[in-house]
């Protein structure tokens, strides 16, 4: 089985969020970049398929040369090879088109994406990719097993879960649950050493429309300080919630 894991290179959650160039760009100064958390679950699950079922795991990212350390980390975690499509990942449709080209050329049976990236929060690449390829698609995927050419997946729904079956080829939008947090793979020394020798191929992007453009960014208005109530003034809190905040 050939698996493609799509990785986003995102600022670490604890990063300070600031904008430069007239608020048109994210300020990368001093920011630590990581594999998007939703993608990490998918990557570890892919490595599980590699170990249990002999799958080949390729990781791909659409981004500039600055994303290569993140791809190397994925190789260190255990992916077999990496691909970087040399283009800025500015629009979800554009990114999906690039990934579709990689999937078509590579003949992948299973494409694992994270449901949403935590910088852009677009949540659209997995679905768009599936639609462009006309592949089966399961979003909010919290469990995945493959038997031959049939996949069984769980999808998180409001107040519960759905068990789904679909034939390969399949795209999933993965999240926590694909593996447990405690089972997430991290690179070990051996992984880091072998990552250096694994192939990281750079491809030029194919022509594709850019359908949306982030014109400007804004930070939310600064928050006013918390209104504290003493532990014996619960009436004060209830009043505030009712009369001031109007939420009860």
């Amino acid at each position, binding site marked *: 089985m050939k698996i493609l894991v799509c990785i986003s290179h995102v600022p670490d959650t604890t990063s300070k969020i600031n904008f430069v160039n007239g608020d048109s760009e994210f300020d990368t100064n001093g920011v630590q970049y990581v594999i998007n958390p939703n993608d990490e679950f998918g990557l570890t699950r892919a490595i599980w398929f590699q170990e249990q079922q002999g799958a080949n795991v390729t990781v791909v990212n659409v981004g500039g040369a600055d994303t290569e350390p993140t791809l190397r980390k994925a190789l260190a975690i255990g992916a077999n090879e990496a691909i970087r499509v040399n283009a800025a990942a500015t629009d979800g449709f554009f990114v999906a088109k690039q990934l579709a080209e990689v999937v078509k050329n590579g003949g992948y049976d299973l494409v694992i994406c994270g449901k949403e990236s935590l910088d852009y929060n677009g949540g659209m690449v997995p679905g768009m990719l599936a639609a462009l390829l006309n592949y089966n698609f399961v979003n909010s995927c919290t469990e995945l097993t493959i038997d031959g050419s049939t996949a069984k997946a769980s999808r998180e729904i409001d107040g519960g879960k759905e068990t*789904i079956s679909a034939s390969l080829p399949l795209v999933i939008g993965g999240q926590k649950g694909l593996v447990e*947090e405690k089972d997430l793979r991290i690179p070990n020394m051996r992984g880091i050493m072998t990552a250096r020798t694994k192939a990281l191929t750079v491809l030029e992007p194919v022509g594709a429309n850019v359908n949306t453009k982030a*014109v400007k960014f804004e930070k939310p208005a600064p928050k006013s300080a918390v209104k504290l109530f003493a532990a014996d003034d619960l009436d004060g809190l209830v009043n505030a919630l009712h009369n001031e905040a109007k939420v009860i």
Partner: protein
Amino acid sequence: MSLLIYAESAEGKFKKVAFELASYAKKIADSLGTTVTAVTVNAGNSSELANYGVSKVLKVTNDKLNNFNAKAYADVIKQAAQKEGSKVIVLSSTTDSLYLAPLVAVGLDAGFASNVVGLPLSTSPFQVKRNAFSNKAFNITEISTDVKVLSIGKNSFGLVESSASLSEEDFAPTLNDADFSVKVESVEKTTGKVTIADADIVVSGGRGLKGPENWGILEELATVLGAATACSKPVSDLGWRPHSEHVGQTGKPVATNLYIAVGISGAIQHIAGINSSKVKVVINTDAEAPFFKVADYGIVGDAFDILPKLTQKLKEFKANNS
């Protein structure tokens, strides 16, 4: 060229979010000099949609659509949009809508913006403000395609009543086997309890509650408020509460009216996930807990002492205010 909304229903009844979408779309329709059409699937009486400005309903009735199916539903919405010549399609941020939205967008060659907060800043060029960086910033996004698909952020636009006279039309889009290639084998739902996604109020517990055996006081508070219960990631990892209650960056997002955090210190990942909640109340013994920095109201004190008393106060409040 009316605006199209997908008015979601469950067991034949419209979800509240359907009326939010109608309210939102109606405002845009008014400014563009057009109207709002809703497409519904196996929903009952559509007349309530007219209270929020919908003037036409494309009513789809089809047994094959009894279970949600993203590809099939996306095909329904796509065909409805094509029938109406809609240039703007408004969807919600429910799990099902976010699943089908990208499929609708590709089907219509449309640009898509998710987590949209507020009405478009302009329609020519078409610009919307959306949440980004896990609720730590906004971005103004311009959609340059002829057709646009929007997913409105949860709880970001209220209900606006505006009466319209409604015409209903039975709509039977062409669906084929390929639309149903993903099969639902079973559905497990925790019944009876209000879900985090639907709740107006969420009561959430962290490690400060010391152990699963202490959750009773939190559940009682939730019951009196008609709230959903939630928990922090460590609590879920420790197995004190089910994974489905984990809210935060890698858990469920919360964008409710009132979020009450008990014994949760306020890790950045947790706050990122709940930051779209309108009012946040923090109860913690530690005055230095980071959560107080983003809270609207707070009590520095012991949950074991405060929660039962707060529950009692709220019972009295409800009794006096019903």
